[in-house]
């Protein structure tokens, strides 16, 4: 306690059958510190935090809280000791109010009834104290994801947390919400709370953390001060080798137009027009990036080009052939490959094996099948070949896709799409939620495929990704192309266009 250390984990070891999840991991957190826990998926961050939160028992090592050894039998013990955790997925009850959710389990009572007013008052006090703005009387179902996260934080504070674990808190937030979260974290810090911030995003960690502990394959690699650390140094510690954060690529050599979209109008499932007269071309050997804030018509645009959504009006020309009212099957046959934005909900059947997933488009064609009869061994052979070629780790052809890490799942999707030799490859958010190693791989691969003469349409919410990969940038705003840039352009201008800035400044 003398040096202001509130929490110390020493020599933590946790073995699951066949896997050493934590091996002699140590971590110390000071009072009023934001301590980032950085590591790739599967590095052991979650295991370590689950041990701290009483969900797992360590096989070796000890936990000291305020200098005294503690042993938590359950999350309840950890909460009582002043440790709070905000999980990636919120544990809120949507039909109850914010205040009810926060006091759940320790409700202030008025006789046998819940003291609703008292609860709301307590919540309001807390929310003012830490600058966490949220309406205590609102239903959780009605508030935004960012606000739900604040409710989770308030819940932990209400239960008296001094050490707050935030498990990848920005993953579900928009950039604006992330900003607000950061200022909340600063407030908590000023109030003497200690925060353990789990992430694999380097820029975030550098911005918010005081000190950073890097885990790799279950081991503590280093604990460094955020000052003096760089993205490159952290990436190296995380991955264990130098990582290219910028993509190296030659200038594009565009060829024939492989995808042309003219005056396209598309409505979403609710009948709202989301794409309003979009026209563009993508040529062989170039990457065209579409930048935009989520929900400005990107999803509908992609779904129209891939035959998953009906077109209201306009033309789509693939490899010189015009298509109207094409089904997903016809688009696949025309040579449109698609790495979808949600690999778990759409890109993969998680319950299927890797082999079955790789056959998702071609299961009915030779050599996979003949006359309706499937040849599983051929599926497996092809999968084995692609697993090797695309460096998919964590399983063989018969492994369930759902059991792979996010990066490897995405490699399976990429392997399937690229191996079909598409003329046009649409990559929607190809690196969302992936760690640096996997991002590097996918970016390099996209550039390679470009150089092989495919037309690549990249849609991403990450400006950095758009800028580092694209040969041409289109900005989409409210279903229209708000800007087009070739060559050098500033991120500020594109950012402005993404928010409809050009319109406003012109008006």
């Amino acid at each position, binding site marked *: 306690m003398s040096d202001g250390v509130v929490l110390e984990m020493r020599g933590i070891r946790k073995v*699951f059958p066949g896997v050493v999840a934590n091996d002699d991991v140590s971590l110390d957190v000071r009072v009023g510190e934001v301590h980032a826990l950085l590591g790739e998926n599967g590095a052991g961050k979650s295991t370590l935090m689950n041990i701290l939160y009483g969900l797992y028992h360590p096989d070796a090592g000890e936990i000291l809280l305020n200098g005294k050894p503690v042993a938590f039998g359950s999350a309840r013990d950890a909460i009582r000791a002043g440790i709070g955790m905000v999980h990636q997925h919120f544990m809120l009850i949507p039909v109850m109010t914010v205040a009810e959710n926060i006091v759940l389990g320790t409700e202030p009572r008025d006789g046998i009834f819940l003291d609703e007013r008292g609860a709301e008052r307590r919540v309001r006090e807390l929310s003012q104290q830490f600058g966490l703005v949220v309406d205590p009387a609102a239903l959780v179902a009605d508030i935004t994801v*960012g606000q739900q996260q604040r409710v989770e934080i308030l819940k932990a504070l209400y239960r008296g947390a001094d050490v707050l674990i935030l498990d990848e808190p920005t993953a*579900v937030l928009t950039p604006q919400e992330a900003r607000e979260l950061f200022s909340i974290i600063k407030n908590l810090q000023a109030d003497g709370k200690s925060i353990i911030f789990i992430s694999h995003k380097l820029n975030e960690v550098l911005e918010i953390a005081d000190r950073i502990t890097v885990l790799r394959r279950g081991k503590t690699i280093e604990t460094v001060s955020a000052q003096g650390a760089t993205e490159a140094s952290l990436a190296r510690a995380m991955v264990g080798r130098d990582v290219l954060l910028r993509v190296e690529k030659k200038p594009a050599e565009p060829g024939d137009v492989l995808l042309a979209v003219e005056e396209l109008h598309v409505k979403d499932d609710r009948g709202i027009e989301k794409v309003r007269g979009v026209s563009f071309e993508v040529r062989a050997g170039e990457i065209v990036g579409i930048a935009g804030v989520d929900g400005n018509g990107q999803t509908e645009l992609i779904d129209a080009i891939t035959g998953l959504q009906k077109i209201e009006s306009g033309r789509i020309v693939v490899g010189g052939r015009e298509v109207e009212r094409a*089904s997903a099957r016809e688009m696949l046959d025309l040579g449109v490959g698609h790495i979808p934005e949600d690999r778990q909900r759409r890109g993969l*059947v998680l319950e299927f094996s890797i082999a079955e997933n790789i056959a998702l488009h071609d299961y009915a064609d030779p050599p996979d099948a003949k006359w*309706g*009869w499937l040849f599983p061994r051929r599926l497996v052979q092809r999968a084995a070949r692609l697993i090797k070629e695309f460096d998919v780790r964590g399983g063989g052809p018969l492994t369930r896709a759902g059991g792979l890490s996010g990066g490897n799942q995405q490699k399976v999707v990429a392997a399937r799409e690229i191996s079909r030799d598409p003329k046009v490859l649409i990559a929607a958010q190809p690196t969302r939620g992936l760690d640096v190693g996997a991002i590097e791989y996918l970016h390099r691969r996209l550039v390679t495929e470009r150089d092989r003469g495919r037309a690549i349409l990249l849609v991403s919410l990450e400006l950095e990704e758009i800028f580092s990969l694209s040969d041409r940038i289109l900005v989409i705003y409210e279903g229209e192309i708000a800007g087009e840039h070739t060559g050098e352009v500033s991120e500020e201008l594109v950012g402005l266009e993404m928010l409809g800035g050009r319109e406003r400044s012109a008006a």
Partner: protein
Amino acid sequence: MSQAENFPPESPEEAALSGTLAASLSLRQRAGGFIVPLITVVIAFLMSGFVVLATGHNPLLAYRDIFDGAGLNWIFHPTTNLASTAAYNLTQTLLQTTTLILTGLAVAFAFRCGMFNIGGQGQYFIGLIVANWLGYDFAHMSPFPHILICIVAATLAGAAYAGIAGFLKATVGAHEVITTIMLNWVAIWVGSWLFGDGGPLQNASDKTVPISNDVADSAKLPVFWGQQLLQGLDIGIFIAIAALVVFWALLNRTTTGYEVRAVGFNPESAAYGGINVKKNLIRAMAISGAFAGLAGALDMLGYLYHYGQNDIPLSSVGFLGIAVALLGRNTAVGVGLGALLFGALLFGTTHGLTSTVIKPELAGNLTYIIQGLVVLFIGADVLILYIWNSRRKLRRPRGAKAAEAATA
């Protein structure tokens, strides 16, 4: 997104320890091929044992009598001689098993495509009716084609009947649970009318009895163990076992099965993969109905030969099929074993138990108690998974929408 990232956890071991409901369920789902159904059955038997105990009898004796009554003790002294009670009992148990295999498959196949077919009972009746009608009407035919026509027509009729529910789901989104339940009632009342007083299929000889005609001898399935007059075991059991093989091969070795499973696991991924989801909903429902229709045909041609209006409300083989499919985890082997268990229970409790072992009025109910408990335990597990999955599906769009709103 990141919440989905973590699901399922990296290894089943981790899942078991992480303590969350979803994680432990996903572990059970994977590890529980045989273990979970086995535990379920054991617990159901234990709890039913308490019921027997509460009536002042010895549960172990009761179970031994059910075992013997179902003819399962035959394996200790195997003989084909039906003078042996065990052998006779076994043939009767296997008759029940035949039906339950097929009604079980009718539920299981739809399940694999993500649908809950509660209409097995109605589809079974349709098969029964068609087999009775053609079995009586085409009396001049020679046996093999006659049997073939009856079976094929009844199977197709069952398929078409279930196909209605699939069609309604695919076109207007009517939930198959509702439509199949309603179609059950349609089949029940159509059957009551057909077999009842003055109905088109009522027997020709005695118009005071609401019973159908007997099918012609040429339509009766050959009996290979026992005598036709004494309700011997017909070749239907082999057809049912063949259906299990067909079920397995269809799901795992054909492109149709690939599509069915893809749609069942994740319709959105299936559509993205280029699979016609609506077509698959209709087709899977029809194939389900085909199994149930076949069950009706085999019962009619195998040992019932005729059907009474009053028998209709008493039949519950279609509903037992749900328990069989749930217990069998919608796999071919599981359905086969589940059907054998319930077949043995059905026959064993009605014939094996004497009043010294258990009160007679409780005897028949014991099957339903055990069945109910099995469905309860397995159903709870499936239900929780179902709710969990739909919650996962629901939460994402709302999160995305909220994020949209926040940025706008």
